[in-house]
């Protein structure tokens, strides 16, 4: 067999890789033909609605579920206490906790059923203020979750030229998936088919099959997810509400659709936990950072009774950097809030928001331009895999695109009048290695190609990119490649989290494609009397030493009457994929000091990510990240009311998301010299969402001369900080 090099082609030979190619399912999505879990409506589908508790902490004194069954159209009621070994031990620990589901012929009948259920609660003491370390300590809600020392911080602080102490924070946000969590479950005999809104097509069947309330063979479960309306790290599990839908579908002998309502989606289906910290950081006369001392806290919501609670991981503090003398301590708070889930690049946005702001304040204290300060310290990186030269190059590109030199000014010199302008920067890092995955590639005798994988396209362009990898490998147009993903009945693939999917799918497909191509080259060599190892595929033809041997279609015919099938696996250390990306973001803001309103003027993101498969979907990832970043930096926030213990803005009116007018000018520059191409494919989906918080906060500080310590930078926080500074 022809031994082909599995590695990517020399860059200049690519027909498709690295070009801007629209996503293949764009028309389906834009025209409404794409079917999401919430669109599945097979004959006889019943609808489930949820009874949730409005108390932050309570026990059920009495409940009458039978009342719902008397409502017209109601077919059944599911008691969520069934998930406990001892239903009597059921305790509500946060607002939105599901008590029961009512299933009916129509959604409104299910709602009437929910209303008919009378519950009497014993309301218990709650604690929801994640920022209040003192209060949490008094209520015995805290626990130390990390404490590590390196070097001699005390001595370094004494020797330092500049020492800065500051308080910083970032509030909890939710995932705000526009398509809420949920599923449509249908049984045929012993077989369960679940249309699930999931980031984990291959990994959820076992959760349904293995649930004590279901208990069937995993082989009998089919998970389907062709499209998903947002997950961001919150949709890896079957979840209790998924199990509930499957159980009720079985019990009632009819399909059941259960999608969370908006409030419940926000309250219990995941959030990005908060982080607050007191940070001391110091540098020498040249601006070289010599010491770091941090004590941070926060909450991942309710963890478990008598557990200390979670906060953002101590091990990556300070973020991106590490210093010779460094102390760090973390305290978790157990609150009566919905539990955390992974949120796009966990927990880097919080780490960055606390670190890059403190460093910026130190730079200001030292009287240095923030960019020069970063340049001076960029060799003090925490991860050996990170490359300071990439950051240096990205600093230069970003500075030019924003005109940093022209726009930077010392703090507080943001102009006359009420509106002040300023610039800020922040940097980030992420792994992005390929996950474990397989695929099946079929080359049909007519020359068309199919790929099968139990993967999913979470909006990132996975389907498109698999098609481009195979089109490039076989030298055929992408229209000749059909990509089949979205069910666990295809070969096992990984969950889409951690920016692992692009590497996870491109490696196995390339490997399988190359193996198939080698087999076809053997057939071509025999038929056309050429040497197999001289052959290459491109532009729909097979070539030998620059001369055309035959068309791709003629070559494919040689396979015989049935398709050639090859399995692809990954990851393999063969250079197709690698890991570790950086990224630099710079932003210019305008701040109205009389109203506290912040406007994004210009936002520059320079991002590396190794070899780019599709430049258009890659850029789209960065644009989306910046928009999400602007949201959590300026307006988006879960507001827990201390009085009632409730998530008081769990709706789309008071949970403030920006619209297009709030976004400003975005400039996305993919850093792609040949050295990046040579690194192979690395995940991109998460890293660009990390730095906006700190970059925007730093720009605001540069504009108004005052640090607004806690994100999001709402008019209230900006005005309060200005008033405090005024005294």
């Amino acid at each position, binding site marked *: 067999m022809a031994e082909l090099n599995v590695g990517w082609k020399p860059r200049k030979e690519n027909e498709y890789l690295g070009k801007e190619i629209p996503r293949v399912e764009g028309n389906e999505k834009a025209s409404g033909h794409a079917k999401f879990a919430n669109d599945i409506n097979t004959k006889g589908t019943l609808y489930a609605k949820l009874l949730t508790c409005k108390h932050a902490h309570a026990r059920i004194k009495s409940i009458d579920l039978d009342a719902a069954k008397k409502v017209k159209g109601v077919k059944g009621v599911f008691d969520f206490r069934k998930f406990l070994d001892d239903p009597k031990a059921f305790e509500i620990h946060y607002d939105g906790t599901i008590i029961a589901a009512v299933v009916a012929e129509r959604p409104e009948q299910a709602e009437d059923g929910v209303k008919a259920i009378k519950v009497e609660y014993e309301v218990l003491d709650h604690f929801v203020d994640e920022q209040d370390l003192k209060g949490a300590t008094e209520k015995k809600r805290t626990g130390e979750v990390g404490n590590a020392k390196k070097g001699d911080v005390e001595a370094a602080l004494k020797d330092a030229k500049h020492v800065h102490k500051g308080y910083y924070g970032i509030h909890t946000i939710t995932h705000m998936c526009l398509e809420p969590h949920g599923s449509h479950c249908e049984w045929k005999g012993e077989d369960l088919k679940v249309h699930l809104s999931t980031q984990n097509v291959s990994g959820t069947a076992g959760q349904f099959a293995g649930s004590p309330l279901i208990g069937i063979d995993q082989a009998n479960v089919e998970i389907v997810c062709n499209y998903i309306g947002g997950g961001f790290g919150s949709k890896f599990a079957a979840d209790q509400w998924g199990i509930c839908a499957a159980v009720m579908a079985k019990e009632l002998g009819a399909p059941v659709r259960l999608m969370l309502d908006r409030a419940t989606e926000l309250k219990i289906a995941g959030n990005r936990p908060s982080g607050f910290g007191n940070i001391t950081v110091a540098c020498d006369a040249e601006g070289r950072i010599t010491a770091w001392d941090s004590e941070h806290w926060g909450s991942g919501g309710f963890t478990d009774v008598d557990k200390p609670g979670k906060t953002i991981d101590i091990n990556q503090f300070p973020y991106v950097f590490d210093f010779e003398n460094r102390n760090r301590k973390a305290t978790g708070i157990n609150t009566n809030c919905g539990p955390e889930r992974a949120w796009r690049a966990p927990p880097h946005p919080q780490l960055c928001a606390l670190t890059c702001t403190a460093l910026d304040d130190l730079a200001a204290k030292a009287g240095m331009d923030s960019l020069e300060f970063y340049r001076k310290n960029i060799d003090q990186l925490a991860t050996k895999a990170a490359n300071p030269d990439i950051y240096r190059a990205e600093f230069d590109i970003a500075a030019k695109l924003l005109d940093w030199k022209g726009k930077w000014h010392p703090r507080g010199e943001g102009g006359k009048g*009420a*509106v002040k302008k300023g610039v800020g920067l922040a940097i980030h890092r992420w792994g992005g290695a390929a996950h474990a995955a397989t695929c099946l590639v079929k080359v049909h005798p007519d020359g068309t190609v199919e790929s099968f994988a139990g993967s999913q396209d979470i909006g990132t362009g996975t389907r498109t990119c698999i098609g481009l990898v195979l089109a490039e490998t076989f030298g055929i147009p992408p229209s000749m490649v059909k990509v089949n993903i979205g069910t666990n009945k295809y070969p096992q693939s990984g969950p889409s989290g951690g920016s692992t999917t692009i590497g996870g799918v491109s490696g196995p497909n390339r490997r399988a494609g190359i193996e198939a191509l080698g087999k076809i080259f053997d057939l071509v060599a025999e038929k056309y009397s050429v040497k197999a190892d001289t052959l290459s595929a491109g532009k729909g033809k097979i070539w030998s030493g620059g001369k055309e041997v035959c068309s791709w279609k003629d070559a494919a015919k040689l396979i015989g009457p049935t398709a050639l099938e090859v399995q692809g696996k990954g990851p393999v250390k063969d250079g197709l994929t690698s890991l570790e990306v950086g990224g630099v973001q710079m932003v210019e803001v305008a*701040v109205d000091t009389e109203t506290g309103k912040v*406007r994004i003027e210009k936002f520059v993101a320079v991002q590396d990510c190794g070899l780019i498969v599709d430049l258009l979907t890659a850029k789209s990832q960065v644009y989306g990240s910046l928009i999400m970043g602007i949201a959590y930096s300026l307006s988006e926030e879960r*507001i827990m009311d201390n009085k*009632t213990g409730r998530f008081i803005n769990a709706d789309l009116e008071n949970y403030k*998301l920006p619209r297009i*007018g709030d976004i400003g000018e975005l400039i996305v520059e993919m850093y792609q010299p040949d050295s990046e191409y040579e690194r192979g494919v690395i995940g991109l989906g998460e890293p660009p969402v990390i730095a906006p918080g700190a970059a925007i906060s730093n720009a605001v500080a540069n504009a108004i001369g005052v640090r607004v310590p806690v994100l999001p930078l709402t*008019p*209230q926080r900006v005005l309060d900080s200005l008033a405090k500074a005024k005294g």
Partner: protein
Amino acid sequence: MTPFEYAHPRSEAEAVELMNEPGTSTAVLAGGTDLIRLLRRDLVTPQRVVNIKDIPSMQGIKPVDGGVMIGALTTLEDLAASPLMSEYHSLHHVLDGIRAIQIQSSGTVAGDLCHLPNCWYFRNGYGLLGMENGESLVETGDNRYHAIFGNRGPAKFVSASRFAPGMIAGQARVRVVGPKPDAEEWLPLEYFYITPKTNAQGVTVLKPGQLITHVWLPGTDTAQGKVQSSTYEVLQLEGLDWPLASAAVSMVVQSGVVQDARIVLGHVAPVPWISHEASRTIIGRRVTEETAAAAGEAAVASATPLSNNGYKVQLARTCVKRALLRAAGQETGGL
């Protein structure tokens, strides 16, 4: 949503009749941009919903008595497009800030005037006053968006209407019909709003079985000169959002000196908040950055912020200053 009977009258008389059947609670449906939200959360549970959208007499804008008669059902889109409204700058400033296309096309003038508070305690089921076990949740809870004036009583929410400040400043009157078949009343809009002491009292003088049919605005030409008007709203977001505070100004200027001025703040009190202090400060003076700032200062002198909304005092101060500058045709500054 609780089931209700649906009625679809074609005249004011028919609407009043349908709204006054003894023993039947009713709600009025016009644009529905607020009512549907309230119904879906069971915050209002009428036995009958009366859809007044197709009553011809309540549509359109006409010149009447030197001013304009605006049908209650006039949509915001139609209000913005009407040449008769071109001199009512304060209303246009509000319209410019309503960016949601759905609200522009479905929302009505009277719907805005009758919009119930956006207070999150009310919207989460704790009643208009946001009470639980006889205690105000607003007082010690999260009151960042609540009142800084008129909040000493149990009502601490803020009036939600976007147009009321500008219309009150412009001395609008509203026509109310019902509950008796022939009952008709004209009253100044500034007397339309009330600060309730109980959940049942509502936010306006409207009694069950009454509705607004028209709003009349005086003309912008007066014996003293042309009325100059403006509204300044602070919106956190450029898209669908409620103002954090606003101020509207209606004034007459002769030889550069303010002869008369009415200044009304929005979203800072349970009712649109008329600031006589601000008016007194600016009358007899020229509008400059300094005098406008002084009026802003006077407007907030008696503010009584709650535990977590002191920043709204600054917003109110800024709104008054910038509304005055805008009405005078000067640069307001700011974003």
